[in-house]
């Protein structure tokens, strides 16, 4: 009944990225995706701090302090990469040029509302580029553990955490399932190996519809 590891979530998402897509990856599990991109596809990674075409993590000793991603990790550039300033970079996200963004989440609602920037009741929170990216990506995917460490539902009817953006999430990839956000509500498309519809529904506040072709996630 093991849930997916974070790495397995990242691998699962990577498989859905298509040749030629421009993709922005948020902190946490999303960052991990870049290590699992299908080798037969060219996927162009965008970082909001000003680059397109990120390559693999640099070898030890090859790090350049002036070449980092949005999580301040050292990165490299692929042939074909380009560099630009912040206003141009956010023109790419806000202007709907980025095909897919994958972000972490504290909560996702059944309408696809996203909360991922601030703890409830906290006076401070780092919004960064999340609002711009969530709203601007043509498709927004969420990568997250299905529940909080305390077992609380993160997929909810209505957000109780501060909103990042409304109606923006298209698909949720968790350690238990792959769920689409549709106009008719949440649609369970895939289950982690050993998981049941009932088990996932118990950990999901809104009611799940089940896809006719429900599958087990191939890991």
């Amino acid at each position, binding site marked *: 009944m093991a849930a997916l590891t974070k790495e397995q979530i990242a691998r699962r998402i990577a498989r859905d990225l298509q*040749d*030629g897509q*421009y993709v922005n990856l948020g902190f946490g599990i999303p960052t991990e995706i870049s290590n699992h991109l299908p080798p037969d596809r*060219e996927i*162009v990674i*965008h970082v909001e701090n000003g*680059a*397109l*075409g990120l390559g693999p993590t640099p070898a030890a000793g090859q790090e350049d302090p002036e070449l980092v991603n949005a999580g301040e990790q050292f990165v490299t*550039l692929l*042939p*074909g*990469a*380009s*560099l*630009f300033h912040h*206003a*141009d970079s*956010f*023109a*790419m*996200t*806000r*202007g*709907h*040029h*980025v095909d897919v963004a994958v972000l972490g989440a504290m909560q996702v609602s059944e309408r696809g509302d996203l909360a991922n920037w601030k703890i409830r009741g906290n006076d401070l929170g780092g919004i960064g580029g999340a609002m711009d990216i969530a709203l*601007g990506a043509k498709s927004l995917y969420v990568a997250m553990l299905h529940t909080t460490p305390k077992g609380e539902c993160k997929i909810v009817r209505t957000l109780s955490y501060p909103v990042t953006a409304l109606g923006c999430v298209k698909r949720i990839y968790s350690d238990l399932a792959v769920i689409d956000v549709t106009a008719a509500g949440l649609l369970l498309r895939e289950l982690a190996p050993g998981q049941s519809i009932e088990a996932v529904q118990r950990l999901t506040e809104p009611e799940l519809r089940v896809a006719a072709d429900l599958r087990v996630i191939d890991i």
Partner: protein
Amino acid sequence: MINKIWPSVDAALADVFDGATVLFGGFGGAGEATELMAGLLRQGASGLTGVSNSIGKGDSGLAALIRSGRLAKMICSFPLIKGGEAFQEQYRAGRIALETTPQGTLAERLRAGGAGIEAFYTPTGVGTEMAEGKELRSFNGVPCLLEQAIRGDFALVRAHKADRWGNLVYRKTGRNFNPVMAMAARVTIAEVDDIVELGALDPEVIVTPGIFVQRVVRRGGAH
């Protein structure tokens, strides 16, 4: 594998549809996508809205498209120029609509369209004909007009070099409106002097990142 290089002008323009909004780069003869404009004349789409700094000169390029009655409307900053008789004839005959917009506002409206900014307040045009029908509002004591974003279905841009990811660099004042038009269109088609290997363009000097470019054709190639 990403390959935005298209084999011919005609293939790259095949899906331009009647009624489309088309952005035409170029200023004063520099940075004009002349082969794409000639291709659009062959292609035949009509009822187009054109966005360009001027309305074209003589009897080629944009002027030829206008003379052929293919544009229903122009948005531009120079509707009256020497050699611009093609437009003036159509306009005076009531066959083409005109929206004149100051040049800086035109550039900014295109950039806004590309950047997902829906509208902005600019001091340019306050107290002039350009203010007619536009909201006037002051910020920090500066009276401004509300101007809205422009987006295109297609942009026909001219650049110097491209790679197969669609990254572009320009030459001198041939840059002009091309980068903001590339941002503002759903399908940007770039006509370039040279196509270089991926990686041959220094990431630091790319002016238009490939994310803004969907198709590239080489000048002097097949129609």
